[in-house]
């Protein structure tokens, strides 16, 4: 399974090489750069358990936000007769809606065959005969590119009956979503895929045992699946060596906000926050200072300037009280009012609650309203204690079916922890001292 070609940017090297064609990797270009060789080798010469084993050994962890080990997840799927009669499903979560996150769209639009090859290998590893790419409704270009790529792969015999001339068959299709952030939650996504309201399901049972249409189902993020071909081609040891910290592989990291050069870069797992901000994103724009970051999307806790030397690995970011999340960070500068920013975040979470569980449906709009009161000068002494008490109840895992409200309270609690003086100043001064900031 070894190949002389050992990429150190397995996710984006082909996109960089396709600069001449606008970064769009064609099927020809993909195959010239060893594309589909890993899927062909895995499907024609390895057992599903061997494929699972390589991914487990590589310690690939979910890139959608939760960081669960992919190979371990795959191993929960019942195999052979134990699965019972009927389909098994591999679903790619391409519902990229975590605010501040823009990595999966980049991968799908520019190198759709990489995702398809990852899905072929994943489907083979769990012996799924149906694969769906669940893509958010606003990603028109990415959906078209994927549909075209599936058709190209089918014409070559890579998708459909007896792929690569083997006895393994798998159908792939793109499902375009009707909207709503909650579809990114894996059981809500499965309900949406089944054509229902996207309300999360109670767990257990977990999807690997009972998922889409009650059948064993694995849901993996786009970037996670895009890692799989190179892992199979180059091996677990190679993948471990790519990371510079405790986690394996590379990651498409991103930075947005008032930095000089916002963007995406594929870098080793464990790259320090400071390197991302100062080297790749070019530091803060003139006239702006860093106040904090949301390291991995809107539902991750704030970190501040004291955390910049932390490596972007799952463990250290968690130890600092936050989450790696999607690895695409939002930079908060000194023109931003933290109370009004918190109101913006809670407006998002309140609006995007599916409305099923009471603490989330009723609690999040209540938090948003309290923040609006504080911002607009109607704050009262004791409001912050009230906010904390309710945030604790709303955010406690187990009070709701899914982690939507829990995620909502991560930036809320950490805003109170790091920027409490600013909240107090709003209440004491009867309104926003910054008046929505110097940047407008």
């Amino acid at each position, binding site marked *: 399974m070894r190949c002389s070609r050992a990429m150190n940017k397995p996710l984006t090297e082909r996109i960089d090489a396709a600069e001449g064609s606008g970064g769009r990797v064609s099927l020809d270009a993909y195959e010239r750069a060893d594309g589909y060789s890993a899927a062909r080798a895995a499907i024609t010469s390895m057992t599903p358990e061997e494929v699972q084993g390589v991914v487990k050994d590589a310690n690939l962890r979910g890139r959608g936000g939760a960081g669960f080990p992919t190979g371990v997840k795959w191993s929960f799927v019942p195999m052979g007769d134990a699965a019972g009669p009927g389909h098994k499903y591999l679903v790619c979560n391409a519902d990229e*809606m975590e605010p501040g996150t823009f990595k*999966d769209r980049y991968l799908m639009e520019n190198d759709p065959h990489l995702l398809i090859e990852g899905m072929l290998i994943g489907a083979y590893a769990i012996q799924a005969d149906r694969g769906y790419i669940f893509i958010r409704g606003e990603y028109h270009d990415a959906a078209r590119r994927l549909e075209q790529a599936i058709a190209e792969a089918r014409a070559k015999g890579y998708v459909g009956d007896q792929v690569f001339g083997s006895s393994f068959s798998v159908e792939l299709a793109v499902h375009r*979503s009707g909207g709503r952030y909650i579809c990114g939650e894996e059981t809500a996504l499965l309900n949406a895929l089944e054509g*229902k*309201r996207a309300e999360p399901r109670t767990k257990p049972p977990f999807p690997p045992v009972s998922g889409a249409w009650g059948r064993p189902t694995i849901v993996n993020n786009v970037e996670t699946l895009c890692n799989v071909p190179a892992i199979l081609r180059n091996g677990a040891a190679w993948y471990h060596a790519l990371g510079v910290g405790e986690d394996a592989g590379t990651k498409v990291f991103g930075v*947005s906000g008032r930095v000089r050069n916002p963007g995406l870069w594929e870098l080793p797992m464990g790259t320090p926050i400071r390197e991302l901000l100062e080297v790749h994103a070019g530091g803060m724009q003139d006239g702006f200072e860093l106040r904090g970051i949301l390291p991995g999307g809107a539902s991750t806790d704030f970190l501040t300037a004291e955390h910049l030397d932390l490596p972007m690995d799952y463990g250290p970011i968690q130890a600092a009280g936050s989450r790696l999340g999607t690895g695409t960070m939002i930079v908060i*500068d000194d023109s931003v009012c933290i109370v009004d*920013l918190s109101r913006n975040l809670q407006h*998002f979470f309140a609006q995007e609650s599916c409305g099923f569980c009471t603490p989330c449906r009723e609690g999040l709009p209540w938090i948003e309203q309290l923040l609006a009161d504080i911002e607009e000068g109607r704050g009262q002494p004791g409001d912050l204690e009230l906010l904390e008490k309710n945030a604790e109840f709303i955010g406690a895992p187990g009070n709701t079916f899914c982690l939507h409200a829990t995620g909502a309270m991560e930036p809320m609690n950490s805003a109170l922890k790091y920027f409490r003086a600013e909240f107090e100043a709003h209440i004491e001064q009867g309104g926003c001292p910054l008046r929505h900031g110097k940047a407008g």
Partner: protein
Amino acid sequence: MSEVVNVQLISALSKAETAAIEAEIAHLPNRESAAISALRIVQERRGWISDESLHAIAHLLGMSAHALDSIATFYNLIYRRPVGRHVLMLCDSVSCYVMGYAGIREALIEKLGIHEGETTADGRFTYLPNVCLGACDRAPVLMIDEDLIGNVAPEGLDEVLARYE
């Protein structure tokens, strides 16, 4: 519903719409599972989902119109009211907020003369708020129909809007 009414409602879907919906059903375990895809397919051709369209789709899928409506109204990209010739979605999520969303919103409301959820009197634009559009390195961002437009500034809005008649 009587048989006669049903026949009329089925005829409300075009052959092309029915064929596109049946193609979705073909790769799903049952007909109702195509509900969201069917709503999208019809909306792509008609701009929105009228009661008549809703009933016709529900009949084709073998489900009640009420059940389909509870699904249609859950999803923000399914429109149960008429929209303008162009749908403009302005991102109001955190990266765009940090990069000046408020100024863009103010300028849009002034130029279009409408607020979120409304359509201009000439039927040209419907303005909707939207969550993160996944182009945060180019914030602030908006989407008109299927076009993603980044690095929007209040002073550049006229030029952007002029492209959509």
